[in-house]
């Protein structure tokens, strides 16, 4: 069957999907790589900043440390505000062309893409992590301190495991946003899904049909990711039953009790 300008809408959609399938797949792959890597690195940046910004400082802290801490905090605050307060599309332009001009280096577009998504996500995650830490009951800190744990031990063993679990939904959300928002990276020539779609559409001027396919691919990606992350969240909540070890009357008995709160 030959395709002609008079072919029906469905024929065009099928034709485009068949012809440009490899192109779409390469674009989707780049989109996923950038958004996944960017989210992971952004999460790490957010963790580090969130942890730094919740270090308790009081009148008993060494004044030199207090001063250094204050300066670090101001720098971090500027980073967070600037990257949250400007569009990622503009950040992409500034970073990509700025690096080229100042250092005379041409970043690979893939690297530039991951870099921009990472620091952008990091700025959002920093506040999410900080909120996650602050939302943990003060009693958890006090109990840990009362058995002699230092702040670092408390964070590592008690607070962060709880905080990470609480911020998982927000992190999934960031990942989904990143899958969609990497499309702006086409302005610096990153060959992600939107960029690939544009070149496919440019070949035959079938913008509607091409972008309908693109739309479907984006949706499949975000929907799948949402489902997977939701599954992981449930898994992380742990078993909702526990086992009693040897009841008094029957020492070998193992009774399983269903969690009263999760029922």
């Amino acid at each position, binding site marked *: 069957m030959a395709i002609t300008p008079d072919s029906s809408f469905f024929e065009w959609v099928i034709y485009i999907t068949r012809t440009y399938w490899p192109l779409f797949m390469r674009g989707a792959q780049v989109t996923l790589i950038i958004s996944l890597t960017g989210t992971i690195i952004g999460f790490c940046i957010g963790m580090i900043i969130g942890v730094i910004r919740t270090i308790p400082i009081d009148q008993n802290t060494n004044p030199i440390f207090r001063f250094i801490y204050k300066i670090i905090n101001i720098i971090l605050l500027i980073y967070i505000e600037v990257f949250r307060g400007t569009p990622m599309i503009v950040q992409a332009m500034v970073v990509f062309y700025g690096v080229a001009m100042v250092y005379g280096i041409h970043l690979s577009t893939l690297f530039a893409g991951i870099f921009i998504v990472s620091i952008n996500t990091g700025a959002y995650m920093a506040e999410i992590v900080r909120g996650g830490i602050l939302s943990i009951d003060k009693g*958890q800190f006090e109990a840990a301190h*009362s*058995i*002699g744990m230092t702040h670092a031990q408390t964070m590592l063993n008690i607070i962060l495991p*709880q905080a990470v679990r609480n911020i998982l939904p927000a992190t999934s959300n960031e990942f989904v946003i990143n899958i969609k928002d990497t499309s702006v990276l086409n302005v610096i020539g990153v060959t992600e899904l939107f960029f690939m779609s544009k070149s496919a559409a440019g070949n035959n001027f079938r913008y509607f049909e091409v972008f309908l396919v693109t739309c479907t691919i984006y949706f499949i990606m975000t929907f799948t990711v949402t489902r997977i992350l939701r599954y992981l969240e449930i898994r992380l909540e742990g078993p909702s039953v526990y086992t009693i070890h040897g009841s008094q009357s029957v020492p070998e008995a193992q009774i399983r*009790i269903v*969690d009263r*709160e999760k029922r």
Partner: protein
Amino acid sequence: MEKIVEINHLQKIFGRNEVLKDINFSVSKGEVVCIIGASGSGKSTLLRCINLLEYPTAGEILYHGQNILEHKMTTAVYRAKMGMVFQQFNLFNNLNVLQNCMVGQEKVLKRSKAEARKTALEYLELVGMSQFINAKPNQISGGQKQRVAIARALSMEPEALLFDEPTSALDPELVGEVLKVMKALAQSGLTMLVVTHEMAFARDVSHRVVFMDDGVIVEDDKPEVIFNNPRNERTRTFLKRILEK
């Protein structure tokens, strides 16, 4: 008898609110001391100052004769010697019952996993919670939580155990099981400092009762004296009010 903690001229100010005023008292080895007094009189703040969850504004806290406020000892090391049991239990929500009793031993006392496990099981047995080692804190009752919290504190093998209203957040029918454990601990010779509204416990179990009012220690005496013929008018009024209920 050897004094474990001695407090001299302790003062604590929150903003402009002087919550503790010139507190002087001490706890000796093996003593069970109950602190009673109206809500807001500064009992919790005193307890929290003793294990440095709050930093005193002025005064000294001598631990075996050494002033811990002069940084002779790091705060964390000192705190590990003073166990604390909270009104709201504060079990670690991410850990199960056994892990709650092991984490401090492993991270702070640097005990091996096997050793920590053995000690934890010993104390969980003592409080009657050894069957529940796999349960998470949100799966057990308040009374059970508090017993685990006591086992967690005991697992650190502290020199003294501080209790801040350990039964006040419990349903009335669960108070008994916790008091029973505390009574057994008192009889075993553990040094205990207990803030409580359980007057029967204070009268029957403690060696000394401290009555606090408005940030000062009004009376500090044997339970017979405090309950049968208190010297101070304020003590009398407080006891009359609380015993009438």
